[in-house]
C-alpha cells in the first residue's frame, strides 16, 4: 500500500502561481533569430559614441548639443502633456458620460492616426499663410489671413493633434474596465465626485497614462517629417541635417547615438515606474457609472470633441482635397501614384506578415516560459521600436554597407528593418492573445496525445489567430506611414507613397504631395478601422 512518511518540518512558503516550464532550444533559437537583428544597429550607434575617442568624432560643439537637447525636451514635454490631456478627456467623454453617439465619437477621435504627422504638417502648411486654404476661406468672409504655421507652436500643435489618439485608445479600455464599486466606495465614504476622480479614478489609470505618455514622448523624439516641414529644430532633425550637409556620415551617427542614449533613459524610467504601478488591476463586474452632463457642460463636451475632430481629421483632409483639386483645375499633371501605392501596400503587407509570424516564437517564449532571459529578449526586441527610426535606419545603412553589401538597398533589408522596428507591435498583440488562452488548453491537447507542433497547429494558433492578425494589421499601418528609415534604406527607384509625399512636400509641390497623401490615408484607414472597432468594443 501507499507509503507513510513522518511529518516534515519544512516551513518555506510555497509558490501558488503556475510554474514555468523549460523552453526548447528550437524555440529559443527562433526567438533570438528574430530579435537580435533589431538590436544590432542600436549597439552600433551606441558604440560610435562610447568607443574611445567617439565623443570627439562628431565634431559638434557641446553647446550645440545642449541647445538641441533643450529644444527637443521642450517639445517632448509640451506635446506629451497636451496629448495626455486631450486623449484622457476624449476617453472620459466617450466612456463615462451620457453624451450621444459615444461610439461614433470614439471612432472619430481615433481616426487621426491614419494621418502621419508629416502629412498633418503638410496640411497645416497648405492651410495657413497667404495662399493657404483656411486663410483664403477667412479672407472670403473678411477676416485676416493666418500667418504661416511654423516653428515651435506649429510643431507642438501638429504632434499633439496627431498623437493624442494613442492616449485615447490606451485610456479607453482602462476606463471601461475600471471597477465601479471602487468609485462607489469612495463616494460612500463622503468623497466628492471631483475627489473621487483624482483619488480613485486617475491613480487606476496611471499604468495606461504612463505607457501612453512614453509612447507619445518616443514618437516626438523620433519624429522627423513634421518638425522638418514645420521648421522646428530637434535632435532628430539635426541628425538629418548633419547627414545631408557633412559629406561624412560620422556626425549623424554620433548624434544618433546620443539620441538613442537619451531615449533609453526614458524607456528605463518608464519600466521602473510601471513596475510599481501595475498592481491596480481589478476586473469590473458591471459597466461603469456614467456622468450625466447637463447644460453648458454638455455643450462644452460636444464642442470639445467636434473641435478636435475638425482640427485633427476634417481640416487636414479638406486641405489635401482642396490642393489636389486645385492642381487638377490649374491643369497640373500629377504623376500617377498607383505604382507607389502598390509598392507601399505590398512591402507593408510582406513586412506585416513576416513580423506577425516572427512574433509568434517570442510571444510563446515570453508568455509560456517566462524567465529572466526571456524578459531580456523581450526588452531587446523593444529597443529598435522605441528608439528614433531615423537613427535605427542610419544604423542599418552603415551596417549593411559594411557587413552585408548583398542586401544593401534591397527590399529584403527594408523588410528586415521594418520587422526589427515593429516586432513589438505584433508581439504585444500576440502575447495578449496567448494570455487569454489558458496554458491548460495546450496541456489538455498534449495529454490527449498531440505533440507540441500539433498542439500549436490545432489549438494555439486557431485561438490566437485573431490577435496575430490584429498585430499584423498594426504593423501594416505603421509601415505604410514610416518615413525616415524608408528614405534611407529603400532600393533605388523604389519610391513609396511616404517617400513621394516627403519629396513633394519638401519642395512644397502641394498637388503631388496631396494626391499621394490622400491615397496613403485611404489605404491606412482600412486596417485602422478594423483595429479601432476591435479595440474599442472589447
Amino acid at each position, binding site marked *: 500500500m501507499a507509503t507513510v512518511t513522518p511529518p516534515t518540518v519544512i516551513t518555506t512558503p510555497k509558490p501558488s502561481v503556475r510554474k514555468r*516550464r*523549460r*523552453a*526548447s*532550444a*528550437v*524555440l529559443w533559437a*527562433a526567438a533570438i*533569430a*528574430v530579435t537580435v537583428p533589431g538590436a544590432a544597429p542600436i549597439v552600433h550607434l551606441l558604440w560610435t559614441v562610447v568607443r574611445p575617442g567617439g565623443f570627439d568624432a562628431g565634431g559638434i*560643439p557641446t553647446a550645440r548639443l545642449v541647445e538641441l537637447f533643450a529644444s527637443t525636451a521642450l517639445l517632448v514635454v509640451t506635446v506629451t502633456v497636451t496629448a495626455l490631456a486631450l486623449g484622457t478627456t476624449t476617453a472620459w467623454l466617450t466612456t463615462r458620460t451620457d453624451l450621444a453617439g459615444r461610439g461614433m465619437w470614439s471612432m472619430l477621435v481615433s481616426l487621426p492616426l491614419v494621418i502621419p504627422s508629416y502629412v498633418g504638417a503638410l496640411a497645416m502648411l497648405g492651410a495657413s*499663410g*497667404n*495662399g493657404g486654404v483656411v486663410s483664403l476661406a477667412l479672407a472670403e468672409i473678411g477676416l485676416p489671413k493666418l*500667418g*504661416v504655421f511654423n516653428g515651435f507652436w506649429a510643431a507642438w500643435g501638429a504632434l499633439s493633434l496627431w498623437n493624442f489618439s494613442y492616449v485615447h485608445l490606451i485610456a479607453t479600455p482602462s476606463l471601461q474596465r475600471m471597477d465601479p464599486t471602487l468609485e462607489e466606495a469612495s463616494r460612500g465614504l463622503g468623497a466628492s465626485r471631483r475627489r473621487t476622480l483624482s483619488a480613485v479614478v486617475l491613480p487606476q489609470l496611471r499604468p495606461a497614462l504612463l505607457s501612453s505618455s512614453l509612447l507619445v514622448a518616443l514618437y516626438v523624439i523620433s519624429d522627423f517629417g513634421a518638425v*522638418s516641414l514645420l*521648421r522646428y529644430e530637434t535632435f532628430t532633425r*539635426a541628425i538629418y*541635417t*548633419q*547627414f*545631408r*550637409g*557633412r*559629406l561624412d*556620415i560620422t556626425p*549623424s551617427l554620433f548624434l544618433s547615438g546620443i539620441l538613442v542614449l537619451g531615449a533609453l533613459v526614458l524607456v528605463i524610467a518608464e519600466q521602473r515606474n510601471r513596475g510599481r504601478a501595475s498592481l491596480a488591476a481589478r476586473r469590473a463586474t458591471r459597466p461603469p457609472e456614467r456622468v450625466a452632463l447637463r447644460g453648458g457642460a454638455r455643450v462644452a463636451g460636444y464642442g470639445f470633441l467636434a473641435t478636435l475632430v475638425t482640427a485633427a481629421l476634417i481640416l487636414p483632409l479638406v486641405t489635401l482635397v482642396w490642393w489636389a483639386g486645385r492642381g487638377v483645375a*490649374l491643369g497640373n499633371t500629377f504623376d500617377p501614384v498607383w505604382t507607389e501605392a502598390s509598392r507601399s501596400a505590398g512591402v507593408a503587407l510582406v513586412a506585416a506578415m*513576416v513580423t*506577425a*509570424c*516572427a512574433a*509568434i*516564437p517570442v510571444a*510563446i517564449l515570453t508568455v*509560456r*516560459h517566462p524567465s529572466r532571459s526571456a524578459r531580456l529578449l523581450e526588452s531587446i526586441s523593444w529597443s529598435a521600436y522605441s528608439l528614433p527610426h531615423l537613427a535605427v535606419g542610419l544604423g542599418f*545603412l*552603415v551596417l549593411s*554597407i559594411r557587413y552585408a*553589401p*548583398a542586401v*544593401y*538597398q534591397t527590399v529584403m533589408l527594408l523588410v528586415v528593418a521594418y520587422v526589427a522596428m515593429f516586432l513589438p507591435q505584433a508581439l504585444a498583440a500576440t502575447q495578449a492573445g496567448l494570455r487569454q488562452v489558458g496554458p491548460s488548453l495546450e496541456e489538455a491537447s498534449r495529454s490527449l496525445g498531440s*505533440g*507540441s*507542433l500539433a498542439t*500549436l497547429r490545432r489549438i494555439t*494558433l*486557431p485561438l490566437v*489567430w485573431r490577435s496575430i*492578425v490584429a498585430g499584423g494589421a498594426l504593423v501594416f499601418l505603421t509601415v505604410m506611414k514610416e518615413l525616415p528609415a524608408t*528614405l534611407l534604406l529603400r532600393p*533605388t*527607384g523604389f519610391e513609396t507613397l511616404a517617400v513621394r509625399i516627403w*519629396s513633394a512636400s*519638401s*519642395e*512644397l509641390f502641394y498637388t503631388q504631395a496631396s494626391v499621394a497623401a490622400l491615397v496613403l490615408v485611404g489605404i491606412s484607414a482600412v486596417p485602422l478601422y478594423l483595429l479601432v472597432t476591435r479595440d474599442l468594443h472589447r
Partner: protein
Amino acid sequence: MRRLTGLMLVLGLVLGACGGTGASEETTATTAAETTTTAAETTTTAAETTTTSEAEPDEPLVLYSGRNEKFVQPVIDSFTAETGIEVDVRYAGTGELATTLTAEGESTPADVFWAQDPAFIGGIAKQGLLTELPSDVLALVEPRYADDDGRWVGITGRSRVLVYNTDLVSTDELPASVFDLVEPEWNGRFGVAPTNGSFVAFVTGMVLAEGEERTLEWLQGIAANDPVIFDGNGPIVDAVVAGDLEAGLVNHYYLLQRIAQLGDVPAANHFFPSGDPGGLVMAAGAGVLASSDQPEAAAEFIRHLLSSESQAHFLTLFEYPLIAGVGGPEGQLPLAELPTLDISLTDTADTLEPALRLIAEAGLT
C-alpha cells in the same frame, strides 16, 4: 468557421515560408534538424536569386540624382527610348546622396551622380570616387563649367539671386551686395536654406573669393539677423510669392518656374553685381562613378544629358543650357552676360569642408 479555415491556410503558408518558427517545448531532435535545413535552404535560394539578378548583363544604370524628378525623368525616358538602357534613379538631396556615396565608397551601386552644385560633386571627386570622363563629353562644355581634371561636367548653369516680393520690397531697398543682408534693416525679413546644397556651394564660393574670416563674419551676421530658416529653395520662393516672406536667397529658376505655372506673380529676382559672391553662377554637374561596372553606358548617359534635345528640356525649366547653340531662358540675360565671380568651380571642392564648418560654427545647422 469556414472563413477562419481559409485565413488559417494563408497563415499556414506564411508560417511555412518562415521555416516553422513556432515550435513549442520538447520538440524532438528530428523536427529541429528539419527546421534548420528548411531555413538554410531558404537562405540559399535567396542568395542565389540575388546573385542571378546581379549577374544580369543588361542591368539598369543606377543614377543618384540630386535634381528633382520633374527635371530628370523626361531625359531618362528619351535616353531609354534611344539606347534601350533602363535607368533606376535614387532621388534625394545632393548632400544626402554625397554622404551616402561617401559611406558606400567603392561598394556603391551607383553608376552616375548628378549633383545640384559643383562643391558636393567636387567633394566626391576628391575622394577618388569619380572616373575621368571621355574627352568628347568634356569638349561639349566650356572648361570653366567643368572639373579641371575632367571628373565631372556641368549640365546646366544657375545663378544665385535674391528673390523678393515686389509688393513688400521696393527696388530702391534692394541690397547692392549680399553682404548688406546683415544690416539691421533686413532683420527678420529674408529666408535662407543653410543646409541646402546650393547654399553650401554658394558659401564655398564666398570662402574662395573672400576668405574664411570674412565668410564666417557674414554667416554670423546672417544668423544674428533673425532669418527664416528653410530646408530648400522651393519653399522660400513659395513663401515670397505668397507674401509670407519678403525676400530669400535662392537659385534663379525657381521663380521663373512659378511664373510659368501661375502667371504673373508679385515677385522678382534680384541679381547681385559681378564680383559679389552673392551672384555666383554655378554648374549642376554630373560624373561617372569609378566603381561603375558599365562606364560606357554611364558616359553615354552624360553625353545624352548634353544633347541639344535634353538641354532644350532644361531650358523649359529656366536653367541655363551649357552647350552652345541652344540659347538661354526667354526674357533673361544670356549666360555670358550674367554677373561673374572670379573663382574656379573645381576649387569649391576644397572649400567645401571649411564652408560646412563655418555654417555650423555660425549656428545655422
